[in-house]
């Protein structure tokens, strides 16, 4: 589904990604882990086309198409979703109107029927149950005045509305208490389907107890230093990141 080859990217001329290779197939859940400042979030943002980052080399294909030929909104409608670590607030724009427009844009792109406000209301009432969100949040301005946890709930609600084939979730657990994390983790699991894939970006292994990846990658200094199965996450939880970095440094010296 997603194929990343030797991807390099920079921000304001400073290289952040220094050659990433990653292959994600339908049905897979991957976790990207690493210390702060390792380039994890950058990887996610580059994939969805954030304007602050410049792709300096390598290639990424999504369903065989060159991802970098597509505008960010086209990538989104093609089925790539990113749940942001810090979702932005948009005063005056109703959450429900935003969700409906996003839904309808995707429906239009896929040749499905768009939903009018009443139909969407029925649709969204079902979806909010999945993330245990209160209905009043639909009428509020998009993310405005939401707590950190409410914003994350809203991100997963958007994921539930759009049903992306590839969801990239950046630090979903930050700002969440343990109960909310379980609710959202379960929601993400329910949304997972055999033709979908997940890329979980996280510093802490905690979230991987709920959303269990088959593949775990350690990213540091803009490179994937180590890849493994779920056992790698357990090891990172026990031993931290330093040993991976040391191992990699030793490898470089050899």
């Amino acid at each position, binding site marked *: 589904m997603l194929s990343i080859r030797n991807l390099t990217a920079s921000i304001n001329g400073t290289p952040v990604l220094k050659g990433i290779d990653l292959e994600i197939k339908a049905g897979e859940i991957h976790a990207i882990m690493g210390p702060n400042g390792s380039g994890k979030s950058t990887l996610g943002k580059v994939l*969805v*086309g*954030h*304007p*602050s980052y410049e792709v300096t080399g390598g290639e990424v294909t999504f369903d065989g198409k060159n991802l970098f030929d597509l*505008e*960010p*909104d086209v990538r*989104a*409608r093609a089925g790539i*979703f*990113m749940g*942001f670590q810090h*979702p*932005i607030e*948009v*005063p*005056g*724009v*109703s959450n429900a*109107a*935003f969700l409906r*427009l*996003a839904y309808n*844009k*995707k429906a239009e*792109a896929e040749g499905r029927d768009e939903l009018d406000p009443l139909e969407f209301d029925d649709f969204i009432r079902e979806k909010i149950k999945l993330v245990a969100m209160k209905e009043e949040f639909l009428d509020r*301005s*998009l993310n405005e005045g939401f707590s950190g946890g409410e914003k994350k709930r809203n991100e997963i609600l*958007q994921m539930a509305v*759009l049903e992306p084939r590839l969801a990239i979730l950046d630090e979903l657990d930050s700002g969440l208490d343990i109960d909310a994390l379980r609710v959202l983790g379960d929601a993400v699991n329910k949304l997972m389907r055999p033709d979908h894939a997940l890329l979980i970006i996280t510093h802490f292994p905690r979230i991987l107890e709920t959303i269990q990846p088959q593949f775990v990658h350690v990213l540091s200094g803009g490179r994937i230093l180590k890849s493994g199965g779920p056992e790698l996450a357990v090891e990172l939880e026990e031993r931290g990141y330093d040993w991976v970095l040391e191992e990699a440094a030793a490898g470089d010296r050899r």
Partner: protein
Amino acid sequence: MNATFSGVTSQEYKYGFVTDIEADSVPAGLNEEVIRLISAKKGEPDWLLEWRLKAYRHWLTMAEPEWAKVTYPKPDFQKIVYYSAPRAKAPKYASMDEVDPELRRTFEKLGVPINEQAALAGVAVDVVFDSVSVTTTYKEKLATVGIIFCSFSEAVKTHPELVKKYLGSVVPSSDNFYAALNSAVFTDGSFVFIPKGVTCPMDLSTYFRINNKDSGQFERTLIVAEEGASVSYLEGCTAPQFDTNQLHAAVVELVALDRASIKYSTVQNWYAGDKDGVGGIFNFVTKRGLCKGKGSHISWTQVETGSAITWKYPSCILLGDDSIGEFYSVALTNHKQQADTGTKMVHIGRNTKSTIISKGISAGDSSNSYRGLVKVQPKAEGARNFSQCDSMLIGQTCSASTFPTIEVQNRSARVEHEATTSKIGEEQLFYFQQRGIPAEEAISMIINGFCKDVFRELPMEFAVEATKLLSLKLEGSVG
């Protein structure tokens, strides 16, 4: 600017066409002879000519205001044509059938309903083309409840006592440079009189169109609502696309007697000049409402999107006890546009209340300033004001300024002022795009969200228009 913002192509000004019509104009230039000529052409009574001449003589002693945060080449007042009217068989069209077909096509093209059959239900329109009112719809129907809605020129003839009583009573002819100029040379505009106790059964509106390349438009609107009367009035304006600047210096006076209510809404879309700042209207307007009576209520709502230069401060004089003044404004500037706009709320009566909601949006290389005065006079016991001035910047090269002045001379007054400046950043835009929403629609949704508090004050059809207009204006601006 980055790639995300660019690529949204520019939308041309779709009202920029010129109507090829024979005009009856006076020679360019301004002197007492020209004023006499205008007055004679309109068959005015002597008192009005004298009023004009007095204003003119005062104007000669005045200097153009320099305090606004706008820069522009000063108009050469001797090069402006002060009167230009489509040549017609009769001075005023008795019915639509007599209106020049070319003119009718013009207004059809502009989407202005001047044919009553085809008109929007519930909106009566006075149509002003350059210096004259072309037609007024629903006049007879409104007259059955005692409402006078006609062109200013007609009112001078049919209701001279009312015009004489109220003309200049809110904006004196010596008020300011442009108001004085207008008083000397004003040509037409609308007159509205709502008698005691009458609620106007439909929205009234005037559509202003400047067509002549060299003419200025100097219209004058006077709205009087007697005790307990109420009216909602809408104003729209467009002009052709010329590479020279045209001057629009209007005066609007509103008078609300006891418990009367006047709601005045404007969607201003004068030609703004091209992206390099060539051409466009200089919009120097004095609008003021007098809440004369106890419990009277005047509300200004404006959506300012056009003009090269905007200089405009719709204000309320809250004279009557318990009177209410409101100002809701969206001012959008793009490219090289400059706007200095805001309001004055002068609290004189007791327990007077005012609300100011101003939303400035600047894009391109434009400059957008809010300038406001809240003044509480010594006797305005219990006066209250709430002001909120928000600015939004799009891109790196525009500017937004806020110049609020608060003068309070009564200890019991409560005045609150809030101001914010935000950037429609890449982050907001990107968030929308990441959810599959294209940049243009994203911008439109973000801007409409920002302006929501003002748009909900507009009459329904106007709000829809305003929403569309802002989106159009911002296409390409965000590049």
